[in-house]
């Protein structure tokens, strides 16, 4: 299917949101709070953050919430009644970046292989991605090194590119994107010949992915390398929580005397508890082993098992790290090692 090009006036966004909401769409849009930007449900008076390079938290919570009820149960004497979750509402995620849009395929690869996860699928199928390409990038960005780009259309249903004129160039990429346009057709105008490239950020390729992937399996047994790279790691897991492609999760119960809920919550392979056996034995007892797992999972195991990288190069993990660990630098070190 070819990509349709339209023009969307920037000041018609509030009307677009109102019309989508009127048609029953929940809108998740960037919202700034105390210096952090994350995706929140847009209320009628809600402000959409404008000047963010990258949101602090990724939009993965639209389909994989930080904490999610898998089912509920109630206690009735000795009996237990289990109850399915209600169907998710149709959702539009607005203002995510092309790297974020690409990450949904990574999440889908995990949740769909072998046993299809219906809870995830039901949300993904009802989620449309209305992304905005990047006019700026910073030193942490490396989308172009992992197959993406500041104007990459993969994963998005509609990709907007801000033109100098204050208009967006709208690329309508998928059927789901065309459905969105149909909900507010008068706002999407015919566009002259596009030229979005000149409005995009420059993100140079920073390492050779092929080289990195050839070297990774060979450096598994290099304790010194992993120790040096992870010496400053606090094991706080912030990198995994901001990552748009980290999928590892925990299952926990929350209950009182009447009943409770079984929850799926984000987890991180950086936590020592992640692999701790009941016996006290821990197969990855060192932080360096956990750092190695994080890197190899994303760049070696993911491609081997699910034919996708587990990283989209958004740079969030390095921006958030309180100990200033830089994933990009560590990847470069491995890729460039002789």
């Amino acid at each position, binding site marked *: 299917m070819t990509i349709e090009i339209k023009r969307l006036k920037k000041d018609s966004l509030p009307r677009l949101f109102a019309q989508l909401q009127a048609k029953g769409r929940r809108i998740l849009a960037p919202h700034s709070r105390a210096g952090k930007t994350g995706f929140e449900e847009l209320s009628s008076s809600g402000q959409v953050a404008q000047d963010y390079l990258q949101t602090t938290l990724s939009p993965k919570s639209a389909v994989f919430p930080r904490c999610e009820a898998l*089912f509920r149960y109630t206690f009735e004497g000795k009996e237990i009644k289990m109850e399915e979750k209600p169907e998710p509402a149709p959702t539009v995620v607005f203002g995510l970046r092309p790297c974020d849009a690409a990450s949904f395929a990574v999440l889908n690869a995990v*949740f769909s292989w072998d046993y299809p*996860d219906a809870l995830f699928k*039901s949300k993904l199928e009802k989620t449309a991605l209305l992304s905005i390409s990047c006019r700026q990038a910073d030193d942490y960005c490396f989308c172009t090194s992992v197959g993406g780009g500041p104007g990459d259309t993969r994963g998005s249903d509609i990709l907007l590119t801000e033109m100098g004129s204050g208009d967006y160039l709208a690329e309508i990429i998928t059927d789901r994107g065309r459905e969105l346009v149909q909900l507010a057709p008068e706002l999407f105008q015919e566009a002259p010949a596009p030229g979005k490239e000149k409005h995009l950020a420059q993100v140079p390729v920073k390492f050779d992915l092929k080289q990195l992937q050839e070297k990774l399996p060979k450096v*598994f047994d290099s304790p010194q390398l992993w120790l040096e790279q992870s010496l400053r790691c606090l094991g706080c897991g912030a990198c995994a929580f901001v990552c748009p492609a980290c999928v590892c999760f925990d*299952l926990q119960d929350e209950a009182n005397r009447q009943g409770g809920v079984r929850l799926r919550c984000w*987890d991180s392979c950086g936590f020592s508890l992640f*692999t701790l056996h*009941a*016996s006290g034995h821990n197969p990855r007892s060192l932080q360096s082993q956990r750092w190695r797992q994080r890197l190899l999972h994303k760049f070696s195991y993911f491609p081997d098992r699910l034919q996708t990288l587990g990283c989209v190069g958004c740079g969030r993990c390095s921006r958030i790290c309180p100990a200033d660990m830089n994933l990009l630098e560590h990847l470069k070190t491995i890729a460039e090692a002789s």
Partner: protein
Amino acid sequence: MTEPNLYMPYLMRIEKITPEAPLVNTLKLAFVNDEEGKNFQFRAGQFGEYSVFGEGESTFCIASSPTRKGYLECTFRQVGKVTTALANKEVGDLIGFRGPYGNTFPLDQWRGKNLLFIAGGIALPPLRCVIWNALDLRDQFQDITILYGARAVADLVYKYELEEWGKRKDIKLITTVDPGGETPDWKGEIGFVPTVLEKLAPACQNTLALVCGPPIMIKLTLPVLAKLGFQPENIFTTLENRMKCGLGKCGHCMVGKVFVCKDGPVFTLAQLNHLPPEY
């Protein structure tokens, strides 16, 4: 939702609780929904997620044999939050079960073979499933030998079955306890499992060895098996790693790129030799 919710467990009623050893119990579980019970199938080696509503889930093997229909058994030691809650349950109480998950011991490829079971302590339950499966199809296999050891007599699980197996003419059962773990009336061997195995010196020809036990027992038993001539592809074990989903998604049980919950828990030594030491 048209597809089933993967995380929704079967409701199981506790039919029987058998104390096995200090802090170790076996639960016999029946499906609350008869239809679910009739449709439920599993094979030797598979595991499940057992849950106490309000506390969470725990991973154990299915310790009963697939040849015994209509119920499941699990044997566990009380060590954490969920296992403590499970241990406090009474007959008639409801718990959750998700499964069966994971791969299986390829019993159907083992017709005409000798089976040598080597287990230590609380690791007999995964092999007990295979043992009863093989005993229920006894004429499909040649010699069946079981070597089972524990730290002390009190720590031996399934004592009533050990007695039964010991009386059967078609099984060779050797039980042992670590030196100092014997009681005055102990009639079995005294010694560590690898030492007793060396003395027993079973023939490796046409024989499969199934080894399950604490890491130190496995570590010291494998060289003895190698010395006796067992090839790595004829030595089987089950791995356990911390697990949450059992579905190859949550990431907890990964050993390199291998999911213990999907690609295992049953592995041959030949396969383990290619895995990084993350289990």
